[in-house]
């Protein structure tokens, strides 16, 4: 079996927050490698530091110490504009609370990353349609988020994350606001995308059964520390 190249390399990454005199260490010297095409679940209870680690790997936050290398570039050392470019071109993100802009229709929401990436208008239409087809929401493109169900909103958010054809998809508790049926559908979709597009997926969850069912690998965090890291069957 060929060895997959390492895509993300977290080296003794720490993230501290200062609250007055108190220093809170949300992530404490975590080292973790993510291979290309992997479906990694970061598992842990609330406050374990899994979302903070995901934010740093997604380029939304910077570590207080340590390094996060993606394709040999240390995210901690990138300028703000370079980090924004990384988020725009390399990364797609799905959140627990969907985070679709309520004022825009579904297709306008999906088109937003293409606007930010300055993709030509003629190309946008086809890419939005392609992304919406992939999540099965082409018929709802003119609807606003408030007119969609929770599952549909999360699928819409997934279409928005995929439209820029990112190499890595980060999902922060993607099933947290969904019932079990819709939650499973979303994770099935994630696994299908991982399979068909060869995308690397890193998902934060606190639901072990879902992680065990869909992820290739589970890394468990507790109190900011990596306590276990194992490949699934």
């Amino acid at each position, binding site marked *: 079996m060929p060895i997959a190249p390492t895509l993300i390399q977290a080296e003794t990454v720490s993230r501290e927050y200062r609250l007055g005199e108190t220093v809170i260490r949300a992530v404490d010297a975590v080292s973790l490698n993510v291979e290309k095409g992997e479906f990694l679940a970061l598992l842990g209870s609330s406050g374990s530091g899994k979302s903070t680690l995901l934010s740093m790997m997604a380029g*939304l*936050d910077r570590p207080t110490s340590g390094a996060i290398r993606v394709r040999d570039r240390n995210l901690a050392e990138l300028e703000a504009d370079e980090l924004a470019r990384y*988020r725009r071109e390399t990364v797609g993100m799905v959140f627990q609370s969907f985070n679709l802009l309520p004022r825009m229709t579904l297709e306008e929401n999906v088109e937003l990353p293409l*606007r*930010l990436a300055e993709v030509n208008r003629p190309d946008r239409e086809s890419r939005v349609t392609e992304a919406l087809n992939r999540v099965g929401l082409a018929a709802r493109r003119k609807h606003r988020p408030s007119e969609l169900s929770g599952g549909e909103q999360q699928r819409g958010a997934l279409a928005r994350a995929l439209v820029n054809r990112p190499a890595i998809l980060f999902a922060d508790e993607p099933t947290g606001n969904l019932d079990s049926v819709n939650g499973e559908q979303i994770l099935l979709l994630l696994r299908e995308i991982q399979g068909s597009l060869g995308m690397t997926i890193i998902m934060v969850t606190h639901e072990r059964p879902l992680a065990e069912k869909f992820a290739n690998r589970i890394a468990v965090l507790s109190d900011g520390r990596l306590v276990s890291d194992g490949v699934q069957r």
Partner: protein
Amino acid sequence: MKTRDLSELAIRNLREAVLRNSLTTLGVAVGVASLVAMLSLGVGLQTLASQRLTRSGLFDAVFVTSQRNFRGPRQSPPPDPAAKKESPLLDEDVRQRFSKLPSVTEVYPQIRFVTDVRYAGKSESTSVLAVPDSSRSSGSFEGISGNFFSSPTADEAILQIEFAKLLSDQPPSLVGKELTLRYAQRAALSKDADDDALLDSLTGSGKPGGISIVPHEKNLRIVGVIESDPSAGIGGFGGARVYVPLKTAEQLHVAQPDDLQSFMSGNSAKPTYMALTVRVRSPKNVPQVETAIKELGFATFSLLDATKNLRLVFTVFDLFLGLFGSLALTVASLGIINTLVMAILERRREIGILKALGATDRDVRSLFFAEAGAMGLFGGFFGVALGWLIGSALTWGTTIYLRRQNLPGVKISYVPWWLALSAIAFAVVVSLLAGLYPASRAARLNPVEALRYE
């Protein structure tokens, strides 16, 4: 992000909070409107003043006197005493020479005399002024009850209302009636041997001829009554109460104060003038005509310097009006800051999402900047329109008031294109400055914290 996408997003955001953004834009519009209304008032009054002054004939006229003329005790001697001797008299030949100078439109003498006016058994003493025919269109007689003279040689008179009140309790009823002028007429003496001998013995000059001054009467029809004092604008410096056509006045041969001097100088045969008013095409021709006349040996006087001072006064006036107008716009810019800061609080999560999707700090800053600029642009357009309406309302109100006072309406407010464009540009600049702080605050937001915001 491309400018078109940025503009679309900004307009969409403005449309979403339509009430609040409209109120903020209205605030900018009111600020711009007050600025435009104030400045349009300044510009309008300045235009009105310069039009009136130009029409009054004070600024496009050169007043010419002979340097031989008697100088008052307070006046300094002429700069060149030799010139005084050689300075020619202002006679008909000189008047013709002046009228041939370039840019000169009209040359007329100042004929003013004191007379007895008789009407319906009453006799009043007053001052008469000869009016050139150009006053018909100059605006000096605007607001007249009745008419201007029917012809330049008509035996007609116009009365100033204060004098008309002395003749009748109902001044307008005087129009169409006749009055009688009793004045001193100047005539050349016939060449009589006895007179010549008498003159020779009196003057010892041996010069022939002489002048006689005899009382004379002239009947004139009253054609109009005027409330203002048009003589102030005819180079007469005010004070006249009866106006007659210039040519009619010339034919009266009224004795003038300098007749005696003219006679003593040996020019009694030809009429001379105390002063001539030389009208030029525009105030800018005044210096050149003045120089030409001075070179002919005459003394000149013009009010050109007064226009420069007037411009200075209006510039300061405009500056103050502009400052007051800008105060309103400053208050409006505080409204923009408030709206945008509130928008940041409300749209914190949206900013976080945009950043998570790859928006740069510059994209976020530009978006807020574009929204502030758009509010300034719309506010500027509405403000100019509103300011124009306020100015028009002021003109309308003033015209109604003036008409009630039997005075002609005036346009006191004027919005030139440069004022409209500058006001819009100013509104955009002020709005962008107001958006500076909120935009940079939005750009600095940490995406993780922004996404956590509910």
